[in-house]
C-alpha cells in the first residue's frame, strides 16, 4: 500500500505561479469564484510576508493543493449514495472492496478522488476541507466538485503531475511517502512538515520544507485555525435532490488508476 504525497521545498521555490497555471491549463479549471464564493482552483501560490519572525525578516510562499489527507474531512460528508467499489493494488494485485460515496480515499495509493458522474455538486466536501482545496466547477452545466487528483491520470501515462513538470525550481517533488527510499520520504526524514495543529489534524500528505524563518512564517499564516463546520443546509438540499439522481442508471466510476468497477454498475448492465 502506498501513500502518494508531495513535498514543497520552499528553499527552492521562487514564487513564480507556474504550477498554478499549468494545473489550470491541464484540467481546464475556470477562473473566478464559485457560487459559494470559493476560489476556483486546484492549485495555488500565495505570497507570504515580508514579515518579522523571531529568526529575522522573512518572505516566502504558500503553494497549496489537495493534501490527500489520511483522514480526509471531505469524504465522509459526501451525501451521494454509496456504491460498492473494488480497488486493485497495482503493485501486489491485491484487491479491496468498499462502500464509497462520490468521493473516497483510494486504499492503495492514498489519493482522494471524485467520481464526477455521481457527484451531486452540492459543495459539502468543499465546505468541509479546512485547506479550501476543493471548489465546485459550475462550467459544465451541472456543478461538480473538483480538486487536485495528484494527476493520477497523467501518472498513468508515465507523465509527472502538471505542476511538478513545469516547476523550473524543481521545488515540487512528488512520490510515494510509504517508500523510505523515495525523495519525498527523505524530505520527511529531513524534517518536512505538515500544515496541521491540534484542532486541524487530519494527516495532510503534502509537506513543506523551509528554513526556520520561512517555516515560521508559513506555519503561523497558513495552517487552518479550525475545522470548518459542515453546511447543514447544503447537505440537506443535496439529499433532497438525490431521489432524482437515484433514477439514473449506469452509474459509472471514474476510471482512475487502481480503481476497478462499481459492483452496482455491473448489476445494472445485466438487467
Amino acid at each position: 500500500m502506498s501513500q502518494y504525497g508531495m513535498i514543497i521545498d520552499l528553499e527552492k521555490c521562487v514564487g513564480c505561479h507556474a504550477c498554478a497555471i499549468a494545473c489550470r491549463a491541464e484540467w481546464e479549471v475556470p477562473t473566478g469564484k464559485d457560487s459559494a464564493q470559493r476560489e476556483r482552483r486546484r492549485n495555488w501560490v500565495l505570497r507570504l510576508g515580508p514579515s518579522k519572525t523571531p529568526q529575522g525578516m522573512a518572505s516566502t510562499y504558500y503553494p497549496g493543493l489537495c493534501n490527500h489527507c489520511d483522514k480526509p474531512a471531505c469524504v465522509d460528508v459526501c451525501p451521494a449514495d454509496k456504491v460498492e467499489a473494488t480497488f486493485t493494488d497495482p503493485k501486489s494485485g491485491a484487491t479491496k472492496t468498499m462502500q464509497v460515496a462520490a468521493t473516497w480515499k483510494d486504499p492503495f495509493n492514498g489519493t482522494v478522488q471524485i467520481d464526477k458522474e455521481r457527484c451531486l455538486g452540492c459543495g459539502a466536501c468543499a465546505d468541509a476541507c479546512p485547506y479550501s482545496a476543493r471548489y465546485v466547477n459550475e462550467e459544465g452545466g451541472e456543478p461538480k466538485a473538483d480538486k487536485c487528483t495528484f494527476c493520477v491520470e497523467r501518472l498513468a501515462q508515465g507523465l509527472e503531475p502538471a505542476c511538478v513538470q513545469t516547476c523550473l525550481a524543481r521545488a515540487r517533488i512528488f512520490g510515494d511517502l510509504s517508500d523510505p527510499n523515495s525523495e519525498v520520504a527523505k524530505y520527511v526524514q529531513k524534517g518536512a512538515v505538515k500544515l496541521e495543529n491540534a484542532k486541524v489534524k487530519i494527516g495532510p500528505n503534502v509537506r513543506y520544507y523551509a528554513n526556520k524563518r520561512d517555516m515560521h512564517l508559513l506555519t503561523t499564516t497558513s495552517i487552518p485555525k479550525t475545522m470548518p463546520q459542515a453546511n447543514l443546509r447544503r447537505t440537506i438540499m443535496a439529499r433532497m435532490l438525490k431521489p432524482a439522481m437515484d433514477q439514473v442508471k449506469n452509474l459509472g466510476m471514474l476510471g482512475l488508476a487502481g480503481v476497478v468497477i462499481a459492483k452496482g454498475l455491473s448489476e445494472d448492465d445485466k438487467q
Partner: protein
Amino acid sequence: MALNLTRRKFLQTASLAAATAAMSGCFADRAKAGTPFVKKPFAAPGSFADTKTVTGGICEMCFWRCQLVGKVRDGRLVKLEGNPKSIDNGVSICARGNAGVKLLYDPDRLKFPMKNVGKRGAPEWKRISWDEALDECATRLKGVIDKYGPQGIAIFPHGCSATYPMNFFENVVGTPNNSEASFFQCRGIRDTAYVATLGVPPGENVDMANAKAIFLLGGHFGENVHVSHLKRYLKGLENGAKLIVVDPRFSASVSKADIWVRIKPGTDTAFLLAIMNYLIKEGKYDKKYVAEHGKGFGEFAKGISHSSLKWAAKTCDVPEKQIKQVADTLAANAPNVSIHPGRHVSWNGNDFQRERALACLTGLLGTIGVKGGFVPGKGPKVGKVGWPKLMSEHAEQFALHTMAKLYKFSPPGTPTDLIRNTAVTGKPYAIKGYVGWGQNPIQTIPDQALTIKMLEQMDFVMVCDVMPTDITMYADILLPELSYLERYDGYIHKGTQWNFADPQQQFIAPRLPLVSPIATDHERKDSIWIINELAKRMGYGEHIKVKSAEEMVEKILAGVNLSIGQLVKEEGIHLQPGADPYGKALDVEFYSAELAEAGYSAIPTYVPVPEPPKGFARLVYGRSPVHTFNRTQNNAWLHNEMPNNPVWLNDESAKKMGLKEGDTIELVNQDGVKSRTSSVVKVTPGIRKDTIYMAHGYGTMNKAMTVASGKGIDDQSLITRLAVDPETGAHGMRNNFVKFIKNGKVLSIPA
C-alpha cells in the same frame, strides 16, 4: 541519480495501474453511461488525452523565448509545455508561458483591420478590408515622407515580429527615429556601458550556476522570471553560493539572500565605488588580471580614492561594516563571482555610470571568462535575411542625437525623449507619422500627457498589435497581428545549454507555428506579409527579399544547412556540439579615453539624484512573476493570480498614516497627477520608509481589454518627471514621488 531512478520506477508503476484500469473496462462503460435525461458532467480529459504534440514553439509571453511544445486537440491548442528536447528551459515554463493558451484564444484580441472614425484616444472602430487598410496606410505614410522626408516617420517597435517592420522603416524608408523600448526604457544603458568598459554587451551572461557568490543590484528573481536564468541562479544557491542583494525592498531575491543591503534608492553607484576603493586600498582585487587587462587603472584608482566606506555608508544609508562585509565576501570568493549586469536599468538618470561601475567591479575582481563569472556563452551563429540598407546614410544624417551632439553613448535607434520632443516642437524637423508595432508607449514612456500630445500632432498613426493595448486607442488604422503561437516570423532562437558545467552543446530553434491561424472569426496576418504588402503599395516592392515569413525562416536555416522540414524531424530544436565558454579574458577600460573625449566622466562617477520632497516617498516599480509589463494584463489566467498590484508601504509609516493592509488607495505624485485607478496597500516592514513599491504594467485604460481595464494602478501614469541619462538619452523613471489618497483624503508619508 538514485532519486531519478526512483522517480522513473515510480512512474512505471503508475503506468501499470493505468493498464489495470483500462482492462477493467470502466472507460467503455463510462462512454455508454450517458442517458437522454442526464447531461454528461464536465470532466477535463487532461492535456494528454486525444492530443497530438506539436514541436517548434518559441514562447513570447516574455522575451526569454523558452522552447515549447503544444498539445493540440482537433486543431485547438489545449496546453503548452516546455520542449523536452530543450537544453535551455527543458520541460519547465513559467506562469506566463503556461498561460499562452489564454492569449491565443483571448476574445478581446484584435481580429480585423480597423479604421478609427472617432477621435484619437476616444476611438470608434469601423471594420475595413486589408486592401483598404493597407492602401490608406501606404498613401498616408507616403504623404508624410513626401512632405517631411523619411525622418518624418517615427517607429515604436517591440518584439520578434517588429524587427522586419523596424528594418523596413530604418533601412529602406530611411528614418532614424526608431524608439526601441527594450533599449531606451530597459537595457540599452547596460549594453552601451559594458561595451564602453569590456567591449561587449553583457546580456545576463553571468555564470551563476557555478558561482561562489552572486551579487544583485535590484535584481528580484522570482518576481522577475526567465526560466533558464533562474535555473542558473537556483543551481548556484543550491551549490552554496553566497547571495548578496542590494535593494530598498525585501524582494523575492532578498528572501533567499545571505546579505541584504537595504540601500537608499539612487545611490548604488556610491556603494559600488566605495567597494572598489576599499578593495584597491586593501589590495584585495585581482592584481594579475588588472595588470594584464586593465586600462587606465591608475587614473581610476586615484579618481575613486575619495569614495570611503564612511562616505558611502552615509550616502547610501547602510552600515559601513556591511559595505565592508560585501566587499570582503566578493574578494573572498573571487574570481568565481557573478556581478550581475541587471536587465531593466533605466532608473534614475545616472544609470550609465552605475553600469560602468558594475563592469569595472567585474574587471577588478578578475571575474571574466572564469567559472561563476561573466561568461558570454558560445552559441551558434545564424545569418539574417531582410531589408537592404539603402537609406542608412540618410537616416544617420537626420539622427536627432547626432544633430544635437547629445547622448553619444546612445543605444541603436534614437532616444525616445528626443523623438517625442521633436514631434511636439517640430524642431529641428517635423515628425508626423507614427508606426507602432507591439509596443505600448502609453505604459512604457514617462509623462503620458506628453506622449499623447505627440500622438495628437501626428498626420497619421498606424498601430499593429495582438491585443488592444492603450496605444491602440490612438491609432487611425489598427492592424491585427497573428500571435507567436500561430505564425512564422523569421525568429530563430539560439544558445547553449543552461549550465556551463554540463557537456557543451548549442541549439538552433526557429519559431514554428503550433496551430494554424485559419479561422473564420478573424483576418490576422503576420508582420512579414503586412510589411511586404505595405512596401509594395509605397513603391518599395523591388527591395523585398522574402515573400513570406516561412520563406524567411527557410532562407536563414539554409545558411546553416538546415530546413524547416529538418527541424520538424528534430522536434523543433537542432542540437550540435558546443565550445568551452571559459578562458576568454576581456580588456577592462577602467578609465575610458573615449568617454573623456566625448565630454563625459571617464571613470565611474556617482551623481546624486533628487530627494523625496517632505511628505512624499520615492516610487519604485518592478516585475510581477505573472506579467510581462502591460502585455499580459488581459490574460484571464494571469490576471486571476494577481488581479491588482498592491502598493508596498513601510509598516511604521502605515501605522502613522492610519492605513491597514488591504485598504483601497489611490496615489498622487509630486506634480499633482493622480492615479486614474485604485489599488490596495501592502503593509510590510520589508521596505524603506522613503520608498514605495508596486508591480509595473497594471491600470490599463482601454476598455477593450475587458479583463485588465481599470485593474490596479498604472505606475507609468505617475512618472511624469523625466530623468534623462546624459550618456545614452534613456529615460530614468525612479525620480518621482508619491503620497497616498484614501477616501479622497491625501495622506503624507512620514519621514
